[in-house]
């Protein structure tokens, strides 16, 4: 009897076999939750403004700084505007800035990094010295310089964030291209008659896209924070435009007076969608860049 129990309890391979499904289920749970949250975010941002015919700018000084209630689930701000509505509109602007800036930065970074890595030689050296030069300037300072050349608005912020954030992507993509370039499968492609262009487009670029996409998604929250920093300095978005950054900045004063809701809710609106996006990005990377399970288990 005892023998059977031991046999059932710790049979070699049991742990190994059960590890697979367990990993898969947590992974799909993570993916499902992330996907649901991202979908919710997108729906809120796309559907709420046209469906809810309420003015997010409506000032009601009699109802200023009210804590969360049924009438105002997120409370009201210092001039009595509904914070739930402001948060949704703010998320809209911040997401637009974040996604546009991250996409632009990634496209520029990937193009530059892939060119440097694939062409090599003096082109590579020249490009990477340029990258080093731009990196040596503090990027917030450079961003301020760029945004100051334009009138306040959404697009100057996008350009400013994009032009200061393509450097890391360029480095990542170049390193990845260099490592892929020496793989035998590139030799095999070349031997099969592939031109330089074909090798780059068919084998190198798809190889670096997961990394670039991941960098892009992870850059979205960073870009959102940059937007808020620039807005705080009075160079980004004008204060009447609700963005998560401007909302948190205007709420600073009330936080010290004990009113937590004008800071907490916009804060959650930054954290939750960005974490969900990162979760999806991770799952996507695993899918596009499949490794054998045995390699992952090592």
């Amino acid at each position, binding site marked *: 009897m005892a023998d059977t129990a031991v046999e059932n309890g710790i049979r070699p391979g049991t742990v190994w076999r059960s590890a697979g499904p367990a990993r898969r289920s947590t992974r799909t749970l993570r993916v499902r939750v992330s996907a649901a949250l991202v979908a919710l975010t997108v729906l809120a941002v796309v559907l709420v403004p046209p469906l809810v015919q309420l003015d997010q700018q409506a000032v009601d000084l009699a109802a200023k700084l009210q804590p969360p209630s049924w009438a105002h689930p997120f409370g009201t701000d210092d001039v009595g505007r509904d914070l739930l509505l402001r948060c949704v509109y703010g998320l809209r602007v911040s997401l637009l800035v974040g996604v546009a800036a991250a996409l632009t930065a990634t496209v520029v970074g990937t193009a530059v990094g892939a060119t440097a890595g694939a062409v090599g030689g003096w082109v590579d050296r020249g490009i990477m010295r340029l990258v080093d030069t731009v990196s040596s300037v503090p990027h917030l300072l450079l961003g301020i310089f760029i945004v100051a050349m334009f009138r306040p608005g959404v697009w100057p912020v996008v350009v400013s964030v994009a032009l200061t954030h393509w450097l890391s992507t360029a480095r990542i993509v170049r390193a990845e291209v260099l490592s892929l370039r020496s793989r*035998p499968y590139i*030799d095999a*492609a070349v*031997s*099969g*008659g592939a031109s330089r262009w074909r090798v780059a487009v068919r*084998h190198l670029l798809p*190889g670096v896209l997961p990394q670039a996409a991941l960098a892009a998604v992870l850059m979205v929250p960073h870009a959102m924070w940059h937007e808020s920093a620039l807005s705080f300095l009075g160079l980004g978005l004008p204060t009447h435009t609700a963005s998560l950054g401007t909302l948190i900045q205007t709420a600073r004063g009330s936080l010290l007076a004990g009113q937590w809701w004008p800071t907490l809710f916009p804060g959650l609106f930054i954290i939750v969608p960005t974490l969900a996006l990162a979760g999806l990005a991770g799952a996507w990377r695993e899918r596009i860049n499949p490794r054998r399970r045995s390699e992952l288990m090592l």
Partner: protein
Amino acid sequence: MLELRAITAGYDRHAPVVRNASLTLAPGEAVGLLGPSGCGKSTLARVAALLHRPDSGTLLLDGVPVRHWRHRAPRELRTAFGVVFQQPRLSADPRLRLTDLIAEPLRATGRRAEIPQRVAELATTVGLTPDLLGRQPHEVSDGQLQRACLARALVLRPRWLVCDEMTAMLDASTTAALVAVVEEYRATTGAGLLTVGHDRTLLHRWCDRTVPWEAVCGEEPVPAGS
């Protein structure tokens, strides 16, 4: 006729991996190059397959020196060689299904029309089932992947085959199967073979002649038939 004359090659001009190596392959001849690991035989194989520009020395294809190297030799010359590497896992693009892997050289050279027929034909030759053809490299074993890599090397009907430790990662039965495929291809097309390895027994039985690394890298070119 493939002649390598006084080839010096490597990845750093000041520290070449291969020094003054010479080797001649007669048309249709199978030559086995034997050497310990790390001696530079893989680099010489890459040079012979026109995938790596030698620092000095000449490579003659049917008596004509190969010119217009950039990093690699011109496409028309490269495609005369089919190459199989040691590690199938690294020599297959992880994103391509096996059928695309085999068809890739046909796509790269603009011969898409031949793809269905040629892939089906080669899959049978190397022993891959249609089910396996639809899978990605991480879904098949090393042996199955190496079969696909051999099919890819044969798809353009090369006049020369270069096998760099092709069977080092494989079990005995897969090794025998792949050697048989290569020999069958050579028997029907008269292609030459340069195979590189450290398995003396295998190369002795497989090739018309084997050459030890020391003989290739000697001061004097190795006379044919030694």
